[in-house]
């Protein structure tokens, strides 16, 4: 460490807010451009659709961000979503009351997250490995349970939920708010939120300061599992089937949203609003590209380029130049 006074960096809180505003500006800019470029973009129908499309990745990205802040990664979330659609579909079709079926599905998500915590804390496995292992095995377990078939859910009320709106806003988007507000308070205004940051920054220093590092890691992965299971319930409601191969690659979209939203893969840097904005920026690009009849293959390329550009500029600014 240098023994000199280096001029202090700009206060962090301001920086976070500034970055959030930049993302918001980018999102609004995209919306304005698309509204001008295509007549159908600004229609109420399309906006609702866009909000629905972005909602699920947004919720996944919030859970993912908790994990990334501790310096870890959760590759299993897509598989957990698929697996959760199977669990909730089977339970509902078996006649279990819907609220109970949802509760059990969420608990399954919690259990998967706890298992990740166990693998990392007790078995000493790298997060990348343990979550990669559950990614492939959960898909396998789901396929075994369904024999490789889709399960149609025979409950109209359950399916109606994700298609309805409240106060003109799609229910799925309300779910983002339902998750986002507690998540924001948890991460930025609670003790455990601070511990997520401190563990991601320096686990040893946190431990010596009395922070329960193991519990913090358990908590991060459990929350990520819970968010993923919740998204699984929403997805099952939206498409009306349980299928373990659903949500393929969503973990990467969740990570991409989080990173676009300013989360550092090295840990200790991140927010809740950033990943939410990131998810809707990605959703807008996909939606707009569809409306503009851009080849779907191009959408993936655009997403990749966007990740590089945003993270590059974010990095530049973080270094203070």
């Amino acid at each position, binding site marked *: *460490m240098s023994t000199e*006074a*280096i001029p202090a960096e700009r*206060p*962090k809180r301001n920086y976070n807010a500034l970055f959030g505003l930049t993302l918001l500006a980018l999102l609004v800019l995209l919306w304005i451009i698309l509204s001008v470029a295509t007549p159908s973009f600004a229609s109420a129908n399309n906006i609702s659709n866009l909000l629905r499309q972005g909602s699920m990745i947004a919720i996944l990205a919030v859970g993912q961000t908790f994990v990334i802040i501790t310096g870890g990664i959760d590759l299993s979330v897509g598989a957990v979503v698929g697996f959760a659609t199977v669990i909730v579909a089977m339970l509902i079709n078996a006649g279990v009351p819907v609220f109970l079926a949802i509760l059990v599905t969420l608990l399954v998500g919690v259990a998967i997250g706890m298992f990740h915590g166990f693998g990392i804390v007790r078995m000493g496995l790298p997060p990348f490995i343990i979550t990669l292992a559950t990614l492939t095995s959960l898909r396998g377990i789901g396929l075994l349970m369904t024999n490789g078939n889709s399960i149609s859910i025979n409950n109209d009320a359950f399916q109606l939920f994700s298609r309805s709106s409240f106060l003109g806003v799609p229910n799925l988007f309300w779910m983002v708010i339902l998750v986002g507000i507690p998540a924001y308070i948890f991460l930025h205004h609670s*003790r455990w939120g601070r511990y997520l940051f401190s563990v991601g920054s320096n686990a040893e*220093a946190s*431990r010596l300061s*009395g922070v329960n590092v193991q519990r913090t890691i358990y908590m991060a992965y459990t929350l990520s599992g819970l968010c993923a299971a919740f998204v699984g319930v929403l997805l099952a409601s939206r498409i009306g089937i349980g299928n373990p191969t659903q949500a393929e690659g969503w973990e990467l979209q969740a990570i991409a949203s989080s990173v676009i939203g300013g989360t550092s893969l090295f840990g200790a840097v991140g927010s809740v609003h950033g990943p939410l904005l990131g998810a809707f920026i990605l959703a807008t690009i996909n939606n707009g590209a569809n409306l503009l009849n851009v080849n779907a293959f191009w959408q993936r390329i655009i997403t990749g380029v966007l990740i590089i550009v945003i993270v590059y500029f974010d990095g530049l600014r973080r270094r203070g130049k």
Partner: protein
Amino acid sequence: MTSTAQELHPALTLEPGRTILELKGLEKRYPGTHALKPVNLAFKASEIHAIVGENGAGKSTLIKLLTGVMPRTSGDVIWEGKPAALATPHEAMALGINAVHQEVVLCRHLTVAANMFLGEEDSRFGILQQRAMVREAQKIIDDLGFDLPAHVVLGDLTIGQQQLIAAARATVRGTKFLIFDEPTAYLTRKEADQLFTLIRRLKGEGVTIIYISHRMEEVFELADRVSVLRDGTLVGTRNIAETNDAELVKMMINRSIEQVYHKEHFTPGATLLEARNLSGKGFENVSMTVRAGEIVGLYGLIGAGRSEFVTTLYGRHRKSAGQILWEGKEVQVNSEHDAIRLGMALAPESRRDQGLCLNLPVGLNLNLPIYKRISSNLLISSAQEKTEADRQIANLRIKTPTRNALASSLSGGNQQKIVIGRWLAHGAKLFIFDEPTVGVDVGTKAEIYRLFGELLSKGAGIILISSYLPEVYELADTLHVFRRGKLVATHGFRTANHEDILNQALAEKQEKPGGQI
């Protein structure tokens, strides 16, 4: 002093006493800080030039400018009579300017030999000549008189040994100008002696050495000349024979040396902590007590078991035998959490690895142990969070623009104040300070010692670990000497002399290389 632009071939041996590097009005400004005010200084070939100054005086800035890590704001650097831009580290190295940093910046997972030749590997048709490199590296190491193996993985050596390798590495690269930044901070006395031998030898070969240290006795042992920096200004340069300790300290801090070791004596109160025949990883059968109002010093070489002993008290490691008593009752300390709940606080040895969350704000670092207290249920009271942080910043005179500045942006001494300061609000009764003043300047040292006095006056007890004898000698009411995991001697306040304590810590045998813990 200037050597006019004579055409000199770089390979030409330098005549001693000729100016090799000259700084003319060298200056560095950061936004808001004038880190280095225009400096005029000439370095001669084959001299050991010490640079001393408090943290933040501009020493590191100067090094960064000379090694091309940062661009200067204005001024000229004349290298062998010609202006040098020194815009990149590569350019500095090409000229023959190298630096050995306080903290080892090498690859811990590679072998010693691989590190020695990093970037200049010997390969034939693209295939690394590993055995040849190990042989070559071993030859260099043996030649320098370091008793170290070249084939082992660097991370298996002690930090001191790694530092020697870093120094050895710098010498084999056609170096003409070598900067040592606090090289002995983590070295044992024997390792330091080896390093000094190396430095003197380099001087004999015509290399110019810049030696930065907080340890005055080293400056007087090694240097030919010494320059003092204060607040970014070059206060003066002296020939070592024409100055003394007191003058240098006065130049550095405008304060006399007696004011540094500020020792207050209190009547010891009740016993806080007792270790009975405690054994664990790295130490055996250690018994001692710590009472309220006293400083118990643990002196010994790095790796003698002192840190392992205190981290076991603190619940970081499991004890294998013996008892820990807290306020007279036997306790089981199974985790740091248990220790903190009892009323212990630990400021660990390495700020960087164990002490701070560097990329998080100062305020968060200060409040880390007390978040439980300043939050109701789970929600943090942001008002309390702010006042607690600001109070500690003011109390400890931590130099930071705001509590939201990142810990990494502070100087070493101020970082150390955070590590110590975070426990003050916590209300601990027993403070364990592990090497609290490594890499800290005299002024900050004095502040830290004064803080000890404050803690004692409030009825706290202190365990002070140090490899720096004057520190424990001047401060500890009881001084325990550790050697290879055993407590070998105990002294009262200033009851033994330096020589005896040193001999007890060193004993007769030499340490084995690579034999860490």
